[in-house]
């Protein structure tokens, strides 16, 4: 059957069914179009970019959600700056919230209360802003996991992965600096923690603390400084990096999942104009609309319930926003290691889980594409995504990382786990100390086994077809389930991936100890071996043909038997 690979505007099947109508369109560049073309070359831009093809898949929307949440953050954030006062000057509250009349509080908190009670729509916008921040980081995390598990970070997209890692880490700072601004009891407690964290840095900790807080905690400068970080510095860098991120997506063209007609040399999908302009543009409004509805119906960060910051008070169950939970957990379960040496104090119990763990995560994320490329020796460009099962070691590593993160995150709620499940807080803490190490190992083993089983299932399916669900009884009384052959499309999709081979050791240094270009050390070969050794081989063309013949034989054998019995 002939299969179209190009769109034909005069598809006969459509023409016969379509109601007749006048063709509309622009016949020539004139007016504003011509004016712009004469000045900025609009024609060239439209010719090159308007019909750019993007592939369709639900998981490609995750990054879009992150992008649109960021736009919502910018829009709602501008509204909030109209009223918010980033000042730690103590004033007496005289707004309309009766329960706090006359209480001393910072101007920042008073203006957060004014936004919540005196500005119409202020609380709505505050809540949209907070939900958008939470969605922003959640969508970004999901997007990053999609990229990881499908191998979209491979050549030529390593730089875009690095930009993504930078975006991720900066967003955490953006979120944290944001929820520290209202100067309520919860946000002040968060800042108290930051003070302790900054202090714990060996050698320069005290200096960093005095420079950040302009002296002692809490001081009078921090909120104004955080405000600058939150509304200018970080969003500015985020915008620039997002611009670079998107530019590279356009330059590389989007990756696509394997399927009929999808190859490393093409991209199959719908054109930017009009389909993706409407779909992606519409999706921005969907994300924005859902965030507004969340802001309208779901209360978040009710600062008036917490009260103004008082450094001698705290509430039980104080928790940061979800994305800082893993750091919080690490801080909670860390054993109390501290070294006292010649009149100095080295706070490993804060520095390692706080600064160290964050550094470790983002470093591990940043170097992963390069480590994998080194292990696999893979230098080719990849535009077709991996099905996660076809990269079992990578998938298992990813799930192990997620599990480790989840364990730290759970540990961040060890008090809630203890009270909700009526177990000992101490026991929860001890268990989590072990779980952060053991659970990832288990997750790695289990995930790898699942991937290999799925690979085996694919192989079975390719060789023997799909189960028909019909049990046939043969004339001699045997029962068998006939298998239906796969469609060509599915057989291709299941078998199109490359069968990777580990790199083999070769002479990596010459007699004088000088590295040989292209040499593979024994250690590298060993890692490569570990990475690939369990992969299930996909069937070869010969095996497939043999299996098909066997299937035909089986069918004719059964027929022969019937004939024999008939005689």
């Amino acid at each position, binding site marked *: 059957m002939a299969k179209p690979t190009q769109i034909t505007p005069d598809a006969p099947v459509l023409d016969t069914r379509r109601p007749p109508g006048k063709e509309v369109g622009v016949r020539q560049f004139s007016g504003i179009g011509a004016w712009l073309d004469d000045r900025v070359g609009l024609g060239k831009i439209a010719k090159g970019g308007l019909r750019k093809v993007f592939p369709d898949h639900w998981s490609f929307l995750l990054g879009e959600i992150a992008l649109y949440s960021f736009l919502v953050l910018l829009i709602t954030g501008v509204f909030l700056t109209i009223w918010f006062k980033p000042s730690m000057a103590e004033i007496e509250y005289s707004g309309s919230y009766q329960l706090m009349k006359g209480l001393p509080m910072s101007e920042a908190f008073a203006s957060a209360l004014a936004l919540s009670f005196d500005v119409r729509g202020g609380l709505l916008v505050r809540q949209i802003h907070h939900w958008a921040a939470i969605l922003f980081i959640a969508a970004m995390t999901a997007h990053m996991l999609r990229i990881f598990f499908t191998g979209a970070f491979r050549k030529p997209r390593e730089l875009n992965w690095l930009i993504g890692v930078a975006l991720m880490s900066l967003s955490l700072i953006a979120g944290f600096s944001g929820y520290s601004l209202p100067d309520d009891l919860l946000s002040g407690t968060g800042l108290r923690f930051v003070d302790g964290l900054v202090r714990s840095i060996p050698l320069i900790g005290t200096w960093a603390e005095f420079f950040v807080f302009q002296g002692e905690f809490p001081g009078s400068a921090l909120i104004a400084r955080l405000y600058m970080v939150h509304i200018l510095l970080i969003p500015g860098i985020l915008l620039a990096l997002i611009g670079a991120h998107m530019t590279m997506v356009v330059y590389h063209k989007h990756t696509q999942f394997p399927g009929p007609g999808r190859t*490393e040399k093409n991209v199959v999908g719908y054109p930017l104009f009009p389909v993706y302009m409407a779909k992606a543009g519409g999706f921005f409004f969907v994300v924005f609309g859902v965030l507004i509805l969340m802001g309208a119906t779901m209360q978040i960060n009710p600062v008036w319930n917490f009260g103004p910051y008082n450094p001698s008070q705290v509430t039980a169950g104080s928790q940061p926003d979800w994305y800082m939970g893993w750091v919080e957990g690490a801080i909670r379960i860390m054993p109390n290691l501290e070294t006292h040496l010649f009149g100095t104090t080295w*706070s490993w119990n804060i520095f390692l889980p706080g600064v160290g763990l964050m550094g470790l995560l983002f470093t591990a994320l940043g170097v992963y594409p390069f480590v994998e490329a080194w292990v696999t020796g893979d230098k080719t460009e990849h535009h077709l995504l991996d099905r996660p099962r076809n990269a079992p070691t990578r998938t298992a590593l990813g799930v192990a990382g997620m599990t480790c993160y989840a364990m730290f995150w759970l540990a961040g709620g060890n008090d809630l786990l203890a009270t909700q499940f009526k177990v000992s807080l101490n026991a929860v803490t001890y268990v989590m100390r072990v779980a952060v190490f053991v659970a990832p190992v288990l997750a790695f083993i289990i995930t790898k086994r699942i991937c290999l089983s799925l690979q085996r299932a694919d192989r079975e399916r390719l060789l023997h077809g799909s189960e028909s669900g019909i049990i046939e009884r043969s004339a001699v009384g045997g029962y068998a389930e006939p298998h239906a052959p796969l469609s060509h499309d599915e057989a291709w999709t299941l078998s199109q991936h490359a069968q990777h081979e580990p790199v083999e050791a070769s002479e990596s240094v010459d007699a004088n100890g000088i590295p040989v270009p292209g040499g593979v050390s024994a250690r590298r070969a060993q890692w490569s071996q570990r990475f690939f050794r369990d992969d299930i081989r996909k069937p070869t063309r010969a095996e*497939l043909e043999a299996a098909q013949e066997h299937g035909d034989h089986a069918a004719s054998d059964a027929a022969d038997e019937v004939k024999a019995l008939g005689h």
Partner: protein
Amino acid sequence: MSHDTTHDALVPVGDHPVSDPGIEPHVPRYTDADVAAGNNAYRRILGLLALVPVLAIVNAVVYFAVPRTASFNVIGTNFNASVLFLGLTGGLAVLLIGIAMVAWARDIMTDQEIAEERHPAGSSDEVRAAALDKINAGIAESGVGRRKLILAALGGGMGALAIPAVVLLADMGPWPLGDERRRTIEKTIWTEGVRLVNDVNKLPLKASDIELGQLVNGEPATLFDIHDGADFQVQRAKAAIIVVRMDPASIKIPASRQEWQVNGILAYSKICTHVGCPISLWEQQTHHLLCPCHQSTFDLGNSGLVVFGPAARALPQLPITVDAEGYLVARGDFTVPVGPSYFERDSSKDFKEGDQ
């Protein structure tokens, strides 16, 4: 990272056991094939968009008509009417635009997939050669081939600019040198004779009024004489204490601290030695004090030693006594800095297990 090229051959791209069937044939949608269905989709989209102006106007009406404080209760949840209806009308209006646009793309726009060719991200050999020509022409014309020092001098000059850029930040905060530290983070406003007061009602604490097992959150009376808001917060963050009364027979009081307490009434810093949360969860029977932030637990019946959690140092104890009228007063400042650790902190003076 650089790799050799020999491994390209190990990752064969063309060894597919099944040939590529090519892009699936296009199947016309119902809305393409059936004129009535197409018209229905069209009407649906118009209907969605027609609601948007209605909602926008209702939204504006809500803004002016609904009082800010009006609220109502739905199954136990209290909703502010203004927030809720502004959000519902606005959110729905925005959402409808989105749904209409997506529906337009899905039901009306041509849905035939098209293929676009990809090209390698890198440049071809010819482009690279041409680029090299230009680069070399530039290098030659710049004269750095013969006058190499220009580049080094330029780089050095720019690098030197980092010095004023960094120095310019030196005033971001006071320098925590020894004197400054002793004046700030190593000192609180507790001094000899300062009364312990309840931190809420500001009333002085009388030894005879404190019952066995009771915990009172305290502050120095002098705190409330500070009228500068920022200084008040700084001092409160360090001076906060908890005052507990325990049965002297059931607790361990080391010899050096016999004079620090009044008949089993002890005062400790309220600021956790971990990251500085104010500790407040009092387990009366065990004499343990639990920090709600990270669950460090201190034994107040044993000089504030850590019994659980990430804190590494005992809670500093404030030496107290009674004045002539029977009110609790401090005997002086804490003997060690309160709060979280910092690099220059001399932690050898903290109370450790086995100290007397």
